[in-house]
């Protein structure tokens, strides 16, 4: 067990590409940290630098109490699970798991004991004599985990270990990996592009974009208090709804106007975001999560909530909730962040009506709204988010 400290770590390739920019993270002993971000954000490069598979251009990397910048991988006492699993195809499952121990010239009985323990933990017992090609995707994934566990390393590194599994298995393995990590209490650095994995698995989440750390914190903190539009849009599914609105200061306090509605911003929100008042008379990016909106006909204490009237474009009944898509008559927020988010979502490939601003709300399943209905939507104004439309940063103080 050990803590891992990245201090202003940079990766710059010979061709000038700056993959990781001044990355500083203190990872506590036994912590499960998730590096998340769209593809090409530098998260895998960061992981590979910790693994020793890439050189660190500048900065220091400390594992335990050793600076390991120039230490070869095998001396760093870390184990890694690859996206492709990278099982040795000519070895049986047992040999795959034992390979790292054999290289360390460990006692044969001890190897056997450890392999058995890892196999029991991952329910690989009956598969030990098989070759990797005789295994299913989920089983291969388990073997890859077993290979990491059996070494009893100081740190686990996982590079998108679940992205090759189908959706159902992914959910199951997600829980299993989190469980194994908790049982072993080994410092774990987990790379993924899937925000759900980041939210559900990590003690803390580090969200990266274009080689730069955007925000680091507990998953719920990133969800509730995103530092910028990119974090707001990346964390959470569906992503946070956003539109350009106008802030005004009236006798009663601060209001924000968008989509034909003027919403009184509660004092608690202005108190938490003192800088918001200074935006009076200017445009801001207003954000609201889908679950902070409700069918006004069903909303509790609906009277105190702001209203938005619109027509329903589409409903998706999920059983536990109804996802309602509706247009909002307000300009879309367009910044570097939103462009990066669209690129990540592959919006360019899908013919979407780009001029309209479509919001998504999750209503209670008791709601009776149908497509093309006029609907009144209650917005929980306590939960509004405000961002600077130019810099994309959250408006706070």
């Amino acid at each position: 067990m050990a803590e891992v400290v990245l201090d202003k770590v940079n990766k710059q390739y010979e061709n000038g590409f700056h993959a990781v920019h001044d990355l500083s993270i203190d990872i506590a002993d036994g912590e499960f940290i998730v590096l998340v971000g769209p593809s090409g954000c530098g998260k895998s490069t960061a992981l590979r630098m910790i693994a020793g598979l890439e050189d660190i251009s500048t900065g220091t990397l400390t594992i335990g109490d050793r600076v390991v910048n120039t230490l070869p991988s095998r001396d760093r006492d870390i184990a890694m699970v690859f996206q492709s699993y990278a099982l040795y195809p000519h070895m049986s499952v047992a040999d795959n798991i034992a390979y790292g121990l054999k290289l360390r010239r460990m006692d044969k009985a001890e190897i056997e004991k450890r392999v058995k323990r890892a196999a029991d933990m991952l329910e690989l017992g009956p598969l030990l004599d098989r070759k990797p090609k005789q295994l299913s995707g989920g089983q291969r994934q388990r073997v890859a985990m077993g290979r990491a566990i059996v070494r009893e390393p100081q740190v686990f590194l996982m590079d998108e270990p679940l992205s090759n599994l189908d959706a159902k298995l992914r959910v199951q393995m997600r829980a299993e990996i989190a469980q194994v990590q908790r049982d072993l209490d080994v410092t774990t650095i987990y790379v993924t592009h899937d925000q759900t994995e980041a939210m559900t698995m990590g003690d803390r989440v580090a969200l990266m974009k274009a080689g730069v750390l955007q925000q680091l914190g507990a998953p719920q903190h990133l969800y509730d208090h995103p530092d910028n539009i990119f974090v707001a849009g990346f964390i959470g599914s569906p992503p946070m709804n956003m539109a350009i609105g106008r802030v005004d200061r009236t006798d009663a306090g601060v209001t924000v106007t968008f989509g034909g509605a003027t919403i009184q911003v509660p004092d608690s929100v202005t108190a938490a975001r003192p800088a918001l008042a200074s935006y009076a008379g200017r445009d801001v990016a207003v954000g609201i999560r889908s679950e902070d909106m409700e069918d006004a006909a069903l909303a509790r204490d609906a009277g105190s909530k702001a209203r938005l009237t619109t027509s329903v474009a589409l409903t998706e009944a999920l059983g536990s909730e109804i996802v309602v898509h509706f247009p909002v008559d307000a300009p879309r927020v367009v910044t570097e962040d939103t462009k990066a988010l669209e690129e990540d979502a592959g919006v360019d490939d899908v013919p979407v009506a780009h001029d309209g601003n479509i919001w998504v709300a999750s209503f209670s399943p008791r709601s009776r709204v149908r497509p093309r209905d006029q609907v009144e939507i209650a917005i929980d104004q306590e939960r509004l988010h405000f961002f600077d439309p130019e810099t994309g940063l959250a408006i706070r103080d």
Partner: protein
Amino acid sequence: MATTTSNATPAAAEDGSPPPEVVRHGSAKGGWFRRTGLSHLVGILALAFSIFPILFVVSASLNPTGTLSSATLIPREVSLVNYQELFDGSFPRWFVNSLVIASLAAAISMLISACAAYAFSRFRFKGRRTGLMSLLLVQMFPQFLAIVAIYLIFAEITELWPVIGFNTSAGLILLYLGGALGVNTWLMKGFFDTIPKDLDESAKMDGATHFQVFFGIILPLVAPILAITGLLGFIGAINEFLIASIFLRQDESKTAAVGLYGMIADPLTKNAQFGEFAAGAVILAIPTVGLFMYLQRYIVGGLTAGAVKG
């Protein structure tokens, strides 16, 4: 047509009658000849084409008269006298020379090429591209062009260090190694490139050194290409005549190819010793065929299947 068949089958199953096999056969255009006969015919033609010279040589080796003019496809008389005479002469010596030279040249060239190919495939270093390109370029010139230069170089070497000079197996092996290196390296590099780099990295994380990654993980996975380069190297060396004939002048240092040629090269006696020559050719084929049959099981693809998903 496919629709008709799939419609007919469930109906036939329902009323209990056997599925309409005949209809299905008729629906494949052209009948038996188009489907199987043609490929058999092509196979038989190819077989006849390649087996004819073999048959002729085997037959000539069994012909006790032992002359070119008396050789026929079907021997009139069968005897092993040619083989007997062959083994009384220098042939056993030549045969051993051939085996030693071909085995060592094949094995060493396989190892060196594998090392070079691994480096070219996995590492990025200055001169990598240049190195690869020069290997390819050098390979484009036939070895034949270098014979004069090789002769002069080895004439010098023979005087200074006769252990690897003319008339030594070691010298000839060295020469063959240089010749095969380029092709083998390229061939292997292509194969190495198909082994996912994740495997190297995974082994590295498991604690393996470069050496252990190479011998423990990569080499077992490239067994098919090792088998092929080894086999090609062996065949090339055991059949090589031109350089060997210049290099090996003394009778006891000759390879079988050079020695056998000597039997039929003399215009006065060439006709007379043809039976022995044919017998030598048959014997020389045995190790090659044996090696091929042994290596055949390694020359199978799909060994890397299951390493990574997909």
